[in-house]
């Protein structure tokens, strides 16, 4: 449990840096972050399923300039880690995965809103490094600019680490303690909800890219799958 929590918080925290602080290579996208966490925690299949479900939902939310959007990276790390952790501790059959993951996502969202506030706080205090760099340059120590700039990563990482550590503990504990008391209808509702989430993702992205002149391409895509399906069925 403690080992998994540390893996989640450290590796998840490092993956989260790709979002803003370093690289921007998109390892922070759910389709990558969730399977990586799944692989590290011993269940790649759960990771990739969470990645598929969460990938498109927050895709059009752009982290541009001063805009702070819902952190889909930490969401996918959190949902993957807590789902695997709970599944291991409850020794549930594989079929209960969607309901546990859906329950985890349901609990994650309020915490992600708190994370947005934490992110805003980090972005406010990070100006400290600029002021320090200014002083150092004025004192002729310009070789330390790099240290000052890279120190900004520390604040981003600490924020990710603390958030993931606390939220994984909270979510895993709440699900472990309450899952068996959930009515069957709730569990089935969670299963259906998890199944429908990719549809919400498709709708969200579609809404952001679909222009009237592009309808034809969208319908062409649907038609292609229908034709492919018919061909494959008749083989």
């Amino acid at each position, binding site marked *: 449990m403690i080992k998994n929590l540390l893996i989640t918080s450290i590796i998840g925290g490092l993956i989260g840096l790709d979002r803003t*602080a*370093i690289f*921007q*290579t998109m390892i922070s*996208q759910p*389709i*990558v972050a969730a399977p990586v966490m799944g692989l590290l925690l011993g269940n*790649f299949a759960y990771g*990739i399923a969470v*990645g*598929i479900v969460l*990938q498109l*939902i927050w*895709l059009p939310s*752009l982290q*541009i300039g001063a805009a702070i959007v*819902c952190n889909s990276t930490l969401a996918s790390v959190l949902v993957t880690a807590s789902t695997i952790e709970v599944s291991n501790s409850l020794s549930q059959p594989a079929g209960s995965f969607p309901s546990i993951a859906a329950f985890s*996502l349901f609990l994650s969202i309020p915490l992600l809103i708190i994370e947005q506030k934490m992110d805003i706080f980090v972005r*406010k205090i*990070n*100006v400290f*490094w*600029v002021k320090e*760099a200014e002083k150092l340059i*004025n004192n*002729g120590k*310009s070789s330390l*600019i*790099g240290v000052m*700039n890279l120190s*900004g*990563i520390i604040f*981003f990482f600490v924020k990710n680490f603390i958030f993931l550590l606390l939220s994984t503990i909270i979510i895993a504990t709440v699900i472990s303690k309450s899952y068996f008391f959930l009515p069957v*209808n*709730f569990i089935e*509702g969670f299963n*259906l*909800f998890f199944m*429908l*989430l*990719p*549809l*919400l993702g*498709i*709708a969200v*992205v*579609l809404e952001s*890219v*679909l*222009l009237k002149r*592009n309808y034809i*391409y*969208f319908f*062409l*895509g*649907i*038609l*292609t*799958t229908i034709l492919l*399906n018919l061909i494959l069925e008749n083989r």
Partner: protein
Amino acid sequence: MDRKLTNYDLFKATLKSFFIQSSWNFERMQALGFTYCISNAIKKIYTDQVLLKDSLIRHLEFFNTNPYLAPTIAGVVLNWEEKHAQSKENSIDSSSLKARLMGPFGAIGDSLFWATLRPLTAILGFILAFIGIKEAPVIFLIIYNIPAFGVRFYGLFKGYQLGPFIIEEIKKFNLNLFMSGMKKISCFLLGLSLGIYALSPDLQIAKNSLPLNFILCVVLICILILLLRKKISSVSLIYFILIICIGLKYI
């Protein structure tokens, strides 16, 4: 004009540009990251310590643009600083040049990478993962990062070579046409995604009836798009869908 910077200096500056947002903050945004990116090259350009200090302090002023196109601006700035160090003819200092470039470059980069390339590659990754290809995350990363890395390196080298004339070079690419084409492909891929999802035997909303399931998915997509166009956030929709799902199981 004598070139003071070698290809290795430019290469190092590009590598440093991967950390341009490390100390991102609301007050100066990418200012320190940008200064860090060009700091070694600037030290080679200015041998006079006073000029070096002035230049570095000047670059700590507010700066923000798209991280993939920031190296291009860094290249242009290095070109300009080099000219500035050799002759005092330049009427515009590099700070105003940066201020003039960061807005348009930010807009181009954001629409090209965040609003076009990322959705396209992510939808592709989604489809590949959905049909069971385990390497989908790796394929997504490769497809996205080839242009992302390319633009960073090409931008800095070309920016340094051409200076402010890089804008003419960018115009030649006809990016609007390119982005419009990529959006068409994204729409096609979204159609594919919906088709694959709706026809997936594992995900049947309406049990045992593929056509009914397909129609149901299309109807649901239309409802969701309508709700999104009413400015309902995706977070609210997540809870809305959850309530409906649990409610349905009680009916």
